[in-house]
């Protein structure tokens, strides 16, 4: 029996409840508007903040998405709280909608006292639709439906389709912290770490954003010591690879080998987990072209593990302070082999058309469903696998070190270990741990040093051999050749007159030239190893340059290279060793000479120039060779990196080390003024 027809109605206050009370964070609200743009297939979405440092400012969100017709506005935009009917329904660009119920949007729209929506849809590009909402009106009515809203038309201010939402008279100020958080969230919103762009580029018009956007481009991934890459396939089975910084495989495992439940699959949608782990120590970065600080700064801003569902980042996973996979907790147990949120960066990407992972209404994360729990387990299982393998490797290495170290130190170590073991002090466990840490640190140090020593040993051996036998070759055979060459020519002209020179002049000159070249290698080598050159003293930069160019003269001749030296005014000097400057010059020149081998140039040129700038001498070495053609310029400084078949790969490393030891800096231009590589070295001088 129907007596009265009634409806559930909503008090105007509900707007406040569902809006700002449920979604208190400004940045998350604005992000919701940006996500709407994503869902509308926008490629660009710009957020503009005007005068927001005090209340009364304005927020404008503009996109170039599909726009809305009045029907879309009435039945979509203005309907709050509805779940998406078919979450697997993709947009024309193939995006899975971010699935907003609109409550976050409501909160955003209510940031100010007045909101204006302007939109131009694809189907009516010559008309723009406008909707104005004055939230203050709602404060003076009882029920939500009492306020009529009208959609008006106007001629579009902008061309093409898209939507613009203007929120005016903000109730509160948006402080710097909020802006930074917003900037960070926007930068990370559409997975900036993968190489395949989703085609969605949110932009915040604020300097904080520009800085962060630039920083996220930095991509220090190759500096990572480990790259974890794990996947769950469509059946829920996982596999994990651990690679080095260059994505070369170190360890690998299939589902049975790494999952905690080897027999059952993970019940979550297919996912891909990438994590880059960094070892941020001075020594580790000593031989690299980027500094620890740069990478730390980058990690501080973007580190942690982020979660991307259907292409968009989900708050708060990977936020500063968020450790949803308990990295830091595990790290306490074994800091050497485990990543922390400050030393790693990564993301888990999930394709979730069936909405197995549901985001909470208040945007505080994903609802704890079985799917989400399994996703987390997958990640932690992969991390555990990596940690175990790293530990095993470290142990093996330590064992090797122990075996290799001298008897005496082994005995000393053993006696210290024994002393701690037999001590009765209550601090024994701490002592033991401290001792282990110390041992680890020392072997690590030794390891690094050993690597470097090996580096230079290789080179020295070659040098020693050359130097030893140079003495021999500079001696008798050359002497005999040289003297007799002259005698032949002398006696020949004496006996046979000008006929002699006419017939034999050229071949003799050729022999003479050859004798000179052979002689040069010996003396150049000896020249370089003179002990005196290693002495620290006042070194006149210009004289060393002239001497080196002079000494290497015959090599230039042989290779048809013209070397020009343009020294600036003054005579810059610094306190260093001649050997240091010589090794810088010789190696860079050798580099150029070798590079010429790869191209045909009309006139091979090397230009060496200096100029004084402030307290520095700037030395430039440029050539008209092929330039730096390797994909990553920074790679050229790495020891052992060479593009030459039998190259040592050490020359440029030595240059960099020598320059840094002097307190200078070196940079390289792929293509300099002469169209080849250009090395620019700045050295601090004492005077000129």
């Amino acid at each position, binding site marked *: 029996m129907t007596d009265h027809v009634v409806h559930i109605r909503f008090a105007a206050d509900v707007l406040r409840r569902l809006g700002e009370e449920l979604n208190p964070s400004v940045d998350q609200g604005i992000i919701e508007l940006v996500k709407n743009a994503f869902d509308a297939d926008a490629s660009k979405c710009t957020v503009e903040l005007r005068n927001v440092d005090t209340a009364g400012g304005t927020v404008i969100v503009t996109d170039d998405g599909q726009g809305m017709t009045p029907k879309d506005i009435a039945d979509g935009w203005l309907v709050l709280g509805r779940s998406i009917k078919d979450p697997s329904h993709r947009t024309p660009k193939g995006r899975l909608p971010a699935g907003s119920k609109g409550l976050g949007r409501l909160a955003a729209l209510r940031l100010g006292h007045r909101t204006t929506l302007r939109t131009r849809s694809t189907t009516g590009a010559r008309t723009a639709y406008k909707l104005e909402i004055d939230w203050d009106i709602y404060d003076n009515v009882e029920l939500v439906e009492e306020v009529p809203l009208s959609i008006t038309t106007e001629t579009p201010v902008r061309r093409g389709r898209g939507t613009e939402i203007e929120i005016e008279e903000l109730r509160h100020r948006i402080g710097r912290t909020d802006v930074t958080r917003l900037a960070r969230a926007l930068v990370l919103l559409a997975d900036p770490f993968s190489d395949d762009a989703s085609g969605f580029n949110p932009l915040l018009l604020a300097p904080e954003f520009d800085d962060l956007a630039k920083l996220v481009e930095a991509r220090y991934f190759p500096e990572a010591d480990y790259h974890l890459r794990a996947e769950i396939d469509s059946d829920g089975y996982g596999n994990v690879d651990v690679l080095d910084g260059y994505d070369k495989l170190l360890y690998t495992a299939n589902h049975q080998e790494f999952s905690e439940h080897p027999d059952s699959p993970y019940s979550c949608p297919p996912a891909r987990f990438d994590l880059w782990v960094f070892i941020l120590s001075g020594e580790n970065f000593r031989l690299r072209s980027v500094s620890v600080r740069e990478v730390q700064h980058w990690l501080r801003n973007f580190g942690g593990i982020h979660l991307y569902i259907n292409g968009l980042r989900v708050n708060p996973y990977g936020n500063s302070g968020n450790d949803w996979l308990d990295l830091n907790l595990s790290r306490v147990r074994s800091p050497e082999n485990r990543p922390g949120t400050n030393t790693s960066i990564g993301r888990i990407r999930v394709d979730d058309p069936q909405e197995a992972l549901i985001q909470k209404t208040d945007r505080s994360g994903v609802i704890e469903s079985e799917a989400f729990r399994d996703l987390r387990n997958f990640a932690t299982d992969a991390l555990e696998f990596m940690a175990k393998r790293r530990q095993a490797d470290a142990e093996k290495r330590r064992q090797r070190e122990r075996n290799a170290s001298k008897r005496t130190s082994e005995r000393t170590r053993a006696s210290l270990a024994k002393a701690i073991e037999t001590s009765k002090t209550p601090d024994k466990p701490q002592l033991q741990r401290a001792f282990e840490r110390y041992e680890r640190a020392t072997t690590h140090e030794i390891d690094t040093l050993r690597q470097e020593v090996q580096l230079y040993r290789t080179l020295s051996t070659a040098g020693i051999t050359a130097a030893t036998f140079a003495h021999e070759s500079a001696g008798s055979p050359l002497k005999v050749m040289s003297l007799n060459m002259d005698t032949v020519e002398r006696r020949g002209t004496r006996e046979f007159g000008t006929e002699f020179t006419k017939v034999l002049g050229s071949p003799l000159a050729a022999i003479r030239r050859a004798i000179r070249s052979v*002689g040069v290698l010996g003396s150049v080598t000896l020249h370089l190893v003179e002990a005196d050159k*290693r002495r620290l003293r006042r070194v006149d930069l210009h004289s060393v340059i002239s001497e080196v160019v002079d000494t290497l003269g015959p090599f230039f001749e042989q290779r048809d290279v013209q070397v020009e030296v343009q020294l600036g005014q003054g005579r810059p000097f610094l306190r260093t060793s001649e050997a240091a400057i010589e090794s810088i010059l010789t190696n860079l020149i050798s580099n150029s000479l070798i590079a010429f081998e790869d191209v045909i140039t009309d006139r091979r040129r090397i230009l060496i120039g200096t100029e004084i700038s402030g307290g520095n001498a700037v030395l430039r070495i440029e050539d008209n060779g092929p330039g730096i053609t390797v994909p990553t310029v920074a790679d050229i400084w790495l020891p052992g990196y060479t593009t030459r078949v039998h190259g040592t790969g050490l020359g440029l490393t030595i240059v960099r080390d020598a320059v840094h030891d002097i307190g200078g800096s070196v940079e390289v231009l792929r293509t300099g003024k002469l169209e080849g590589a250009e090395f620019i070295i700045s050295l601090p001088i004492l005077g000129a």
Partner: protein
Amino acid sequence: MLTIDSATISTVGVIDDNPEARQSYEWTLQDANVETIGEAGPLGELQEFVGRAVNRLDAVLCDHHLRIRNYSTFDGAQLAAALYEASIPAVLCTRWEDAHLDLIRPYRDRVPALIQWEDLDPDTFVDALALTIREIKGEFSEQRRTWRTQVHIADVGVDEQNEFFYVDLPGWTSDKVIRLRKADLGAELANQLKVDARWHARVNIGTEDAWELYFRDWEPR
């Protein structure tokens, strides 16, 4: 046969530990119109050899590196200096290697002529010989005459083996720093070396080449 000032040079001894090199030197000198005798080794004791050279050889051309083969226990510079003292003009031949010029420098007061074998030909040999003959008689060229001048001690013992000290000559045309061996000063003088001290010595500051500089009559301060 050559006549230089009033000296007659007809027989020149050639000293090198390598027979081929000896022969090559001989051919070169023969083109200067002298007879040559290649001295086969071993040379024996230094003073004995000098004794045998007097009245037999009018001049000598010797290489510096004599110890590589089983030929001699002394270097060419030592030999040339000893011959000079016996009034036999000797021309020393070697290759410019700073490491060795260190070892030759202490003998340079008695070895006026040092040539690189690259530059050796009959003319340069005769010039070198003439220079030596004149110096033995007491006639010094501008590049070889020594003058008492100030020697500034720039550095002492900063090398790995504490073998060297470094000086510069304020009165010379160049401000280049020259490396000298402490051993050449003798222990007594070497112990008095102090950085920045101003000593005096007789130095041939008329030369333009640092490797031609030689020092005598050291006066410490």
